[in-house]
């Protein structure tokens, strides 16, 4: 490894990362983050929660370049990896290799165990099922109390039902795993809480896979069970894969539904445009890409450790240093998205970074897309009078979670 500058020598006066969002503008990335992007340097050093000083990439071009560079590693145990939380840092030492923390050929091997279950053609075939679930949930919402918390009525149950269906996890257990999934993403959890939540969920998934080895169904956990039975995969490897999918599969989409709804209710002209075009699948799909860009749910990602020196924009990033590619900053880069602060549902935004970039880009993104297209195409058509039942200022935004969102969104109609 190349010589490393001691963190204490460079941390003096460095900008702190992450910085808070502006209270009056909770949908926009933190103002200080955008200022860093506007300095004209695409990578800058920042100081993070534990005093380490990784590089922060803030432009769309630099982030794409870095995230597809094989000299950057997703291995959270690699020297220099910029951890998001204390819990993750502790956890990194005894992390099993899996899809999210391996690189190159090893990562491909993991990834290809899952990709067949999430191809775009397959996800398109789920559209009628997703439509049915959405309509059901909206029926229930209309028949129930008014106002209601949109998270509970729609945002969480929809992706949760879908990922359960795909994985073969009984939805009856949703209270249990939603609680643990929320805890997985919490930023300020202790190491013990993090480890405990992981242990409990993995045991749960391992139990399900075990059962499916005897009685396979048509679902992802059964496929994993088959691999375990054939000796291609260890149970200790299969359970974390299922765990990752279960957590990633519902929390992120749920946040996107809630936050997207709030954003649209605050932007009546764009909402009217969406409602008028809700019969046009292309227009709705385009709108969803713009909402993904604008809101960038995984707001504290993407993180990598540098394994060999890289030159970028006149800077040398050395092996053993960390890189955070700020996905919201890249998604608000005017060079890639003119007037990024404008929500424009007709904008061409599909090159956004909301699902990450590079070989680690979200495996479940085509599922998320269909879910979001169905929800945003249906909700405002079916409930044209939908409105916030509280002031925007009253809402609790998830600054403290790795997945940005709103804890409760009271809506009325």
């Amino acid at each position, binding site marked *: 490894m190349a010589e490393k500058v001691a963190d204490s020598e460079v941390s003096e006066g460095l900008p702190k990362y992450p910085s808070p969002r502006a209270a009056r503008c909770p949908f926009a990335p933190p103002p200080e983050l955008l200022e860093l992007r506007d300095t004209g340097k695409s990578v800058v050093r920042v100081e993070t929660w534990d005093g380490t000083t990784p590089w922060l990439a803030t432009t769309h071009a630099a982030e794409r370049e870095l995230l597809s560079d094989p000299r950057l590693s997703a291995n959270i145990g690699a020297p220099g990896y910029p951890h998001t939380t204390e819990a993750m840092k502790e956890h990194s030492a005894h992390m099993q290799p899996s899809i999210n923390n391996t690189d190159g050929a090893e990562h491909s091997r993991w990834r290809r165990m899952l990709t*067949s279950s999430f191809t*775009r053609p397959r996800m398109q075939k789920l559209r009628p099922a997703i439509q049915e679930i959405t309509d059901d949930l909206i029926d229930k919402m209309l028949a129930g109390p008014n106002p209601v918390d949109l998270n509970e009525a729609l945002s969480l149950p929809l992706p949760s039902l879908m990922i359960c269906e795909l994985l073969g996890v009984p939805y009856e257990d949703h209270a249990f795993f939603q609680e643990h999934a929320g805890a997985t993403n919490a930023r300020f959890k202790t190491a013990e809480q993090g480890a405990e939540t992981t242990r409990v969920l993995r045991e749960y998934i391992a139990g399900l896979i075990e059962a499916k080895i005897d009685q396979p169904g048509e679902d992802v956990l059964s496929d994993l069970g088959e691999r375990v039975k054939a000796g291609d995969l260890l149970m200790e490897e299969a359970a974390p894969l299922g765990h990752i999918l279960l957590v990633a599969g519902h929390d992120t989409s749920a946040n996107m539904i809630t936050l997207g709804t709030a954003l649209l209710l605050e932007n009546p002209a764009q909402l009217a445009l969406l409602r008028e075009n809700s019969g046009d699948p292309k227009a709705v799909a385009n709108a969803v890409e713009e909402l993904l860009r604008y809101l960038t749910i995984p707001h504290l990602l993407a993180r990598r450790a540098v394994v060999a020196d890289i030159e970028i924009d006149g800077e040398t990033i050395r092996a053993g240093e960390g890189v955070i590619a700020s996905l919201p900053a890249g998604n608000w880069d005017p060079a890639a998205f003119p007037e990024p602060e404008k929500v424009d549902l007709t904008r061409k935004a599909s090159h956004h970074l909301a*699902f990450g970039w590079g070989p680690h*880009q979200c*495996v479940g993104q*085509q599922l998320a897309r269909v879910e979001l297209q169905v929800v945003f195409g249906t909700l405002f058509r079916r409930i044209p009078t939908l409105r916030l039942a509280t002031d925007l200022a009253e809402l609790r935004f998830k600054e403290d979670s790795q997945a940005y969102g709103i804890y409760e969104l009271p809506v009325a109609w």
Partner: protein
Amino acid sequence: MKVVIEEDKCCAAGQCVAAAPDVFDQRDDDGIVVLLTVHPPDDLAEGVRDAVAMCPAVAIRVEQ
């Protein structure tokens, strides 16, 4: 226009299929990109360029 794909780079994100469904498909058993036509006609060129821009794994290239 000639389209070249690198299968081992492909991470099966499906973005190419979204951008140009007449040019790209995904293999059923592992989601890896399948090139339906090496020389797409001019009216599909824009979709192919979008696919190149959207492929997160930089697995698609256009020659000429």
